[in-house]
């Protein structure tokens, strides 16, 4: 009779090792090139594209060199909207995948000179779950929450809000109509991510944009001093 031996083999490997390693490499590349990279995450319809449209235009007006990568399941509508700012924009079509991965970022940067950029914005797929697990090599992850979504969203999607470095409350112009409870929303975010920086704005109406732009410039300056 054949002798069957079983044994336990230690593997100790991070499942997302390949993504994480690539993201770490890219982060170094971005730092060396002096480009400040932001990963924008939110649920669909929170206003990522609107915020980016205005941000790209404003930063260009200030003489800064900006570019954007936009993730979407199917269309390139968002890239077309953003390209109107005059900034280089590329669409990443995920073909149904619910998140961006580091390798998609690398592929879509092909041919762009990172040295010639000050800011690179990555608009993730609208989804508050899956993108949380994927490091894209960004310096800062920004989670957006619109006032129309409900103040308890951070509690419903704690993994995403916990992984964010900053939060932006969008559509502040609609706050009153939605009976938005500001205190509760801010408390919920900070319950999930203590000491997180929070910016409140309405990109459409231009409210709070100055605070957002100075946040970007301050973060970039801090990163270049490290």
């Amino acid at each position: 009779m054949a002798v069957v031996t079983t044994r336990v083999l230690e593997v100790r490997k991070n499942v997302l090792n390949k993504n994480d390693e690539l993201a770490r490499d890219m982060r170094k590349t971005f730092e060396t090139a002096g480009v400040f990279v932001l990963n924008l995450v939110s649920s669909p319809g929170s206003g990522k594209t609107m915020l980016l449209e205005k941000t790209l235009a404003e930063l260009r007006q200030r003489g800064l060199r900006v570019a954007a990568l936009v993730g979407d399941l199917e269309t390139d509508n968002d890239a077309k909207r953003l390209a109107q700012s005059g900034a280089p924009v590329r669409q990443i079509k995920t073909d149904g995948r619910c998140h961006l991965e580091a390798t998609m970022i690398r592929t879509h940067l092909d041919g762009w000179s990172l040295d010639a950029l000050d800011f690179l914005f990555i608009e993730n797929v609208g989804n508050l779950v899956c993108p949380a697990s994927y490091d894209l090599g960004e310096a800062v992850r920004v989670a957006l929450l619109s006032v129309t979504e409900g103040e308890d969203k951070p509690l419903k999607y704690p993994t995403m809000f916990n992984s964010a470095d900053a939060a932006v409350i969008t559509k502040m112009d609609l706050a009153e109509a939605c009976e938005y409870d500001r205190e509760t929303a801010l408390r919920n975010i900070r319950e999930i991510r203590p000491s997180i920086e929070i910016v409140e704005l309405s990109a459409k109406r231009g409210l709070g944009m100055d605070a957002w732009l100075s946040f970007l410039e301050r973060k970039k300056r801090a990163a270049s001093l490290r």
Partner: protein
Amino acid sequence: MHELSIILGVIETVSESAQAANAKQIIATYLRVGALSGVVKDALLFSFDLASQDTPLAGSKLIVEELPVVIHCHSCGENKVLDGVQSFRCPVCHTPSADIRQGKELEIRSIEIEV
């Protein structure tokens, strides 16, 4: 749901490790999954049953160990286990803490093989 693509990565790594160890058969895969890893245990198990068919892992078991979040409380000077992910405060002194020491794991810990 991104658990399926996560599981495809697990199957690839486990197949490679088992082959490198000259395994005749794979009996079980042990995963460690933190409460902040962004994946759901049931979705992992469901994806595993589907995706492991026609691979060396077909018929083997997937055992998922769930890890709670551990924060470091700077007031108490100690690590504390949280009983959920709804509040990142020390359960003893209630000081908020963003210093996470455990809970983001998504790791293949070990495999049980027949050699």
